[in-house]
């Protein structure tokens, strides 16, 4: 009953068009900010979720960029590796150990004769994308298992073999072909058998098991070229801008294909940032208009409020009344915005799912948290304005 009488005395309708404008501005601001949060959260989900992640994007082989100035000495020092290890985007790091002896490989098959000088590298097993029981070596092994890049086979099959009228080779065929490995030692050539046991998409090198490499380097090594020239890292974020910035700052390079997301990401970041800034500014203006609107309402009922206080109305009663006039509008706006963002998110989910990109069909926790924070902010600003102007009038 008191509220009905107060409604007649303190007319919030005095600036109905202003109120509508303030609510519209608030809605746009709220939408921009919540959409920005949601887009960001969707992007994070696409980047990091297991369902849509490219398995090779996790591992990057890193080496120095070879320039005219560092030819022959493009190696990574222990200090550089330690520094890289400490970067937040590096989860694991492994060095590619090069062979410190000369190697030749020749065919033992009469049908496909070849001989070539060769090299080996090794990495810790955890960085391999090939999982086979044949990948073992110890001093009693009869052959040395090798992993070669898929790219080698492709180059041979689709480039070399066709132009030279040589037969194309399948992975299975290559795995079944043993080769002879000649290691040059100061005491002459030592022969071993070798076998390709797998093909890697991750590391473009000829790999042998780490135990063999350690053993052979010790036994046959010439002490040359002790520093590794390449390392492999496992990273949580192959397209992160931190990583790219670090690499270019330290004159390092990696397979750029894996970091291609970085470009898209910077565009998305720019769009999201613009949305944030615009939304933030609009929110600021909406808050300002609201404060002015509250001030106007109170100022236009100045005499009535003064008389109400004279008759015994408590400032608290009037504040409560005004809160009830202004706050439900804010809550409605936030709820409506959240519903619209939810519907859009469902549409986005359906659209992206058609392209095999998976995001959740409901707003993220961050979006809901942002909505709650904004509502709290609005409430605080409104309550403070009401308190301030009632206090000034009373």
């Amino acid at each position, binding site marked *: 009953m008191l509220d009905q009488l107060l409604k007649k005395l303190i007319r919030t309708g005095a600036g109905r068009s202003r109120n509508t404008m303030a609510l519209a501005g608030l809605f746009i601001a709220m939408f921009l900010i919540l959409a920005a949060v949601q887009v960001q959260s969707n992007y994070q989900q696409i980047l990091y979720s297991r369902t849509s992640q490219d398995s090779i994007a996790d591992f990057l082989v890193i080496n120095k960029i070879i320039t005219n100035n560092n030819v022959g000495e493009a190696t990574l020092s222990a200090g550089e590796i330690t520094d890289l290890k400490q970067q937040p985007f590096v989860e694991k790091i492994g060095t590619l150990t090069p062979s410190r002896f000369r190697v030749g490989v020749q065919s033992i098959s009469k049908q496909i004769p070849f001989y070539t000088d060769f090299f080996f590298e090794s990495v810790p097993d955890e960085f391999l994308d090939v999982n086979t029981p044949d990948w073992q070596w110890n001093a009693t092994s009869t052959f040395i298992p090798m992993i070669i890049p898929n790219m080698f086979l492709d180059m041979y099959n689709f480039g070399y073999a066709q132009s030279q009228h040589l037969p194309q080779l399948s992975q299975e065929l290559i795995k079944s072909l043993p080769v002879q490995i000649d290691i040059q030692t100061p005491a002459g050539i030592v022969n071993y058998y070798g076998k390709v046991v797998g093909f890697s998409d991750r590391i473009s090198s000829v790999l042998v098991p780490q135990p063999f490499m350690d053993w052979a380097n010790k036994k046959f090594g010439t002490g040359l070229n002790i520093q590794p020239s390449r390392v492999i890292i496992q990273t949580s974020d192959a397209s992160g801008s931190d990583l790219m910035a670090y690499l270019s700052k330290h004159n390092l390079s990696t397979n750029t294909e894996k970091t291609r997301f970085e470009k898209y990401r910077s565009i998305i970041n720019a769009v999201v940032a613009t949305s944030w800034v615009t939304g933030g500014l609009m929110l600021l203006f909406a808050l300002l208009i609201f404060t002015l609107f509250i001030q106007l309402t109170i100022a236009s009922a100045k005499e*009535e409020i003064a008389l109400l206080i004279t008759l*015994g109305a*408590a400032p*608290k009663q009037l504040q409560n009344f005004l809160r009830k006039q202004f706050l439900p509008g804010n809550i409605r706006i936030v709820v409506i915005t959240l519903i619209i963002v939810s519907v859009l998110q469902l549409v986005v989910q359906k659209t992206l799912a058609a392209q095999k990109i998976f995001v959740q069909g409901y707003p993220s926790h961050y979006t809901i948290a942002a909505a709650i924070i904004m509502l709290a902010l609005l409430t605080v600003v409104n309550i403070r304005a009401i308190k301030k102007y009632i206090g000034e009038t009373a």
Partner: protein
Amino acid sequence: MQLTIQNIIPVPLKDKLLQRNADVWNKAIQFKQGEYVKIKAPSGTGKTTFVHIIYKLRNDFEGDVLWDNKSLSSITANALAILRQQSLSIIFQDLRLFPNLTARENIELNRVLQQPLYESNVIDTMADQLGIASILDQQASLCSYGEQQRIAIVRSLMQPFNWLIMDEPFSHLDKNNIDKATALIEAECKKRNAGFILTDLEDDEHFNYTKLLNL
């Protein structure tokens, strides 16, 4: 609830009032609950100023006003509101009705500002007693001054109080209506065991005053 005034004197009227020999200005007086106090003074000597000082509508005075030994000078806005809702009711000389509300709404407002003392039908009973039942739903600004005065009287009686403060409350009423109003006021004061402070220009015998003061 008792009212204590300690040497109060309004600053703007200080020089003028100190020259007069007054019962109230610059004196220490106690008013006990239930007293019927009449303050008489000619125009321009500060009746309304006195009423506004003890109701804390103005602060430009020296001295102190204490309700139940609590000074008005340091009271908070919300405590003052509680004092006005529960202990003090007032009829202003200039009435101070909301012109845009009806007579009934003006009265109703003072009924519901606090936990209501009376049911809303008491408004009709009292209005009937004072002969304003027919204009209850009329906008206050359209009522005659005499009607507005009676609306203000009914409004002041709608709330709980220990003291009723009346500033020339019958200035626009005829003898017949004054008798009806005093009867109603006295009955309401008795119900609450409350007293009143009434200011006027002349002597009168509307009530059995327990204290007569010249301002």
